[in-house]
């Protein structure tokens, strides 16, 4: 009887995986966003709800339909790659997060290093889809061992050109905008005869970290856990022509069925725009 049950479960999992693939294929028949950003919020609250420590919430995983344990970020990233979304940006760590308890910050740094080392050594998902990894933010604030891991992971994927994964850590939008303005001013000062009137919104936009990494304009911004703020994430990029979704689902629970309505809304917008 046990083998019948196991066979049935495997069959159902296979059918479910095929239906997911079919769904993604159907979605791909319509407009697909070029750039989607995720503010992965709610890990600690999810952990508390499930009776775990806050630190464990950050590395929590769940059983994928294939039977492998995958973290939500990998699952969503794989869905994005299937849909040919060219750029995904995730908010991994804010500069303000250094205010958290030291043991939590330490655990996050350790987790970041482990993940980056894994990417550098294996990077199966990134290599499979030709994804280039960019780590954006005030890197100098990170511990040296994490900076080393970042350099390795970026070098390992720098030749990939099919898609981009931006990991913002530690990041703050005002810091990014300030650096862009600083760069623009420095570039002008480096010229013998500069014309300040040539500095425009576009000039600053081109010097943002996301743009310097090759990211297209942001089409969709998603924040999980029901919080309705940007919290310093991609303020310049999402203040115009970006659909913002503040969903109630906690990040560890966020999956395809939360993502599909968001993609459908995007498609409606593109169709409405092209018909008007």
């Amino acid at each position: 009887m046990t083998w019948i049950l196991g066979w049935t479960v495997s069959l159902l999992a296979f059918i479910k995986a095929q239906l997911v693939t079919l769904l993604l294929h159907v979605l791909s028949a319509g407009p697909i966003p070029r750039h989607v950003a995720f503010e992965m919020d709610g890990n600690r609250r999810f952990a508390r709800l499930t009776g775990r420590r806050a630190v464990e919430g950050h590395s929590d995983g769940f059983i994928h339909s294939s039977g492998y344990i995958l973290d939500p970020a990998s699952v969503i990233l794989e869905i994005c790659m299937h849909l040919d979304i060219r750029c995904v940006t995730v908010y991994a760590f804010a500069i303000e997060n250094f205010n958290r308890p030291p043991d939590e910050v330490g655990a996050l740094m350790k987790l970041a290093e482990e993940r980056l080392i894994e990417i550098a050594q294996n990077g199966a998902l990134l290599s499979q889809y030709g994804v280039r990894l960019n780590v954006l933010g005030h890197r100098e604030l990170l511990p040296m061992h994490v900076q080393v891991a970042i350099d390795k992971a970026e070098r390992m994927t720098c030749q990939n050109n099919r898609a981009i994964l931006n990991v913002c850590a530690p990041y703050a939008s005002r810091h990014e905008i300030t650096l862009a303005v600083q760069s623009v001013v420095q570039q002008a000062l480096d010229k013998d005869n500069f014309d300040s009137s040539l500095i425009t919104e576009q000039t600053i936009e081109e010097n943002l970290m996301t743009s310097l990494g090759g990211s297209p304009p942001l089409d969709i911004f998603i924040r999980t856990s029901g919080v309705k703020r940007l919290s310093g994430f991609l303020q310049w990029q999402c203040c115009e022509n970006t659909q913002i979704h503040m969903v109630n689902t906690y990040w560890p629970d966020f999956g395809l069925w939360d993502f599909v309505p968001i993609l459908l809304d995007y498609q409606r917008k593109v169709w409405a725009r092209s018909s008007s």
Partner: protein
Amino acid sequence: MVASLFLWLLHLLHASLVFLTTKFQKRRYLPPQPVTAYRSKLPKHLAIILVSYNAANPKHTEELYLECLFRVVKWCKVLGIEQLTAYDAEGTLLGCSDIIQERLTHRNDMLTDESESELEYPLTPPLSEASESRSHSPDFEDFPVQLNVTTVSTSRKGASHHRPREVAVRRRAHDKHPPYNPLTLHIISRSASKAAIASAARFLLDEEFRRRQNSDDLDHVKAYELPISKLTSVPGGLPSPDFMIVHHIRPQDHPPPLELHGFPPWQIALTEIHRTIAHDVALLKHPNNSMPSLITEEAFCRALDEYAGAQFRLGR
């Protein structure tokens, strides 16, 4: 082709689910608390974004925007919200800032019979043309950035109107006019948004160039460094709103997702964002069969209820 057909069916299914969900929510509609109910926190600075997708009738859009603005101004003054920023991307409000000032003055004058209110005129004259840019605050004397901001202040002289927000406001039955608190109103458009930061960058460039020209040492070989604190004092000079309400004056059955329509990006790091829901707004009959909507007290109160329930962890 087949995939497109299935996609169309998927959209139809999604639209149906949204329709049914909306109907179900209407049945379970719970009215928000009244405007003067106790709330654990109120925003000190509120922003309202007014959105219209129909450019066909700009005069009507202007009337709707103005009516929405005056309603929000009234509620803010009742609640003691100190600052209000009104934004629309096209600059419709900015273009009629003289009308706004005049009507706010007139409404304040109506209170003078029974109170000692006194209107303080704005620090700078109203704009004569919407496209003209100038700074509007003494804070900019040291940092002239081209902006397009109109600031209107209303205050009451001699009367004490400070009311701790923790204390519920009770109206006596015979009060005809609720007490009105001072309010600073900023009227902005997209020109005060990313353009303000670009303008700041141009100024910083000119400033640094002049400094290097006047400097005898070899500062020019050093890389230019810009601290965040210096840029913080610039873009728009607008303080950051605690709370933002996005209101569409032409709501749709299947409302599109939230967008910020070019609101100044520098100011929105920690701003709580809310969009009015169709059920709370007042639909108006219009000759061309459209159903424009004004922001209602219910919509405003629901927004405040949501703000009062928000948690701020500030990175922790």
